[in-house]
């Protein structure tokens, strides 16, 4: 299994380039999906429901329907929110048998978790802006506790989250594969398939 680590490390630069290409191709869809989920989450706890996140030129623009028409529209860079998809994809593709059914299922699950984390990161960006960045309006509508909570959430999902989540998700879903690859865990023989018992209920 020692070679497996070397193979992984040799593959990684190639899969990184492949991951960049995939991300660049999927970027418009990823941006829209992340902004869509973040908007849904924000509006779920909002009354009246006024937040609209519109993606333009890889920026999520925070357009509130109750803002004056001449107001400036704050925006968040979607590149910063979603670039860690590249890292997750590169790590997955560098593992052995990346296109096996099991690995594709794990990639799908991992990507879903990362997507959720990116949406939550965007949510905290928007809520932090509402709680701190809109002057007297923020002071009037948000308590100190809310400001601290949203600031805390934004801080942790921002740089620490963006940098560490792909690694954590990849390792969490592929612990057995990674440990085998590192030569730490011996490969366990596969259990023979047993026939499923059909049991009736009631």
């Amino acid at each position, binding site marked *: 299994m020692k070679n497996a680590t070397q193979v992984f*490390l040799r593959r990684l630069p190639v899969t990184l380039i492949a991951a960049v290409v995939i991300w660049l191709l999927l970027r418009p869809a990823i941006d829209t999906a992340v902004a869509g989920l973040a908007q849904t989450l924000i509006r779920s706890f909002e009354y009246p429901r006024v937040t609209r996140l519109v993606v333009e030129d890889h920026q999520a623009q925070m357009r509130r329907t109750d803002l004056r028409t001449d107001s400036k529209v704050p925006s968040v860079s979607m590149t910063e929110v979603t*670039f860690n998809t590249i890292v997750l994809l590169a*790590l997955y593709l560098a593992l052995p048998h990346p296109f096996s059914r099991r690995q594709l299922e794990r990639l799908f699950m991992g990507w879903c978790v990362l997507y959720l984390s990116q949406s939550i990161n965007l949510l905290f960006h928007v809520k932090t802006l509402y709680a701190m960045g809109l002057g007297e309006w923020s002071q009037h509508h948000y308590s100190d506790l809310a400001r601290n909570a949203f600031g805390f959430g934004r801080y942790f999902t921002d740089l620490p989250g963006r*940098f560490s989540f792909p*690694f954590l998700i990849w390792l969490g879903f592929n612990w057995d594969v990674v*440990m085998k690859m*590192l*030569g730490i865990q011996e490969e366990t023989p596969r259990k023979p398939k047993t026939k499923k018992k059909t049991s009736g209920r009631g």
Partner: protein
Amino acid sequence: MNLRELWQKPEARFLILFLTILGVSFTVVALRQVNDAFVTPYTAVIARMSGFVLRIFGEEAVVTGCVVSSPRFAVTIYNGCNGLITSLIFISGVLAFPAKISAKLIGVIGGLLTIQLINLVRIVSLFYIGVFLPQHFNDAHIFVWQSLVIIAGISLWIVWAHKFALPQESS
């Protein structure tokens, strides 16, 4: 599944420890006193090192606090660009993983030095991207170099774990 059973699972134990160490370390560096006493001076040192390397390459680089400037281009080194976050994630990964104390010490020291070296290359290359391809500076800064730095940190962790980690007990 109760907490004890969860703790018996190596992947769960690693993830819990990793997140705890990461959470504590990021909370500590977020404190204003720590930021003023450590993070800002640390970032200024990184800026001075970058300025030094740029001067070796013949640039008339001047460092003021965390800003490296020359007549051709200027970069400001923020908290996310000083290698500290990647270092903290790497250290959390090393400390959370089952290994001897001596191996962890080697990992922490070796990893920190290597990450800083990679970060130095990153800052200098970004400076030149800013000089020659300013229209690509943001892309290079965010998704190219940030991805590269994370991947480099994970690769370092993999090499370290492969060489120094303890074999797991068979359950």
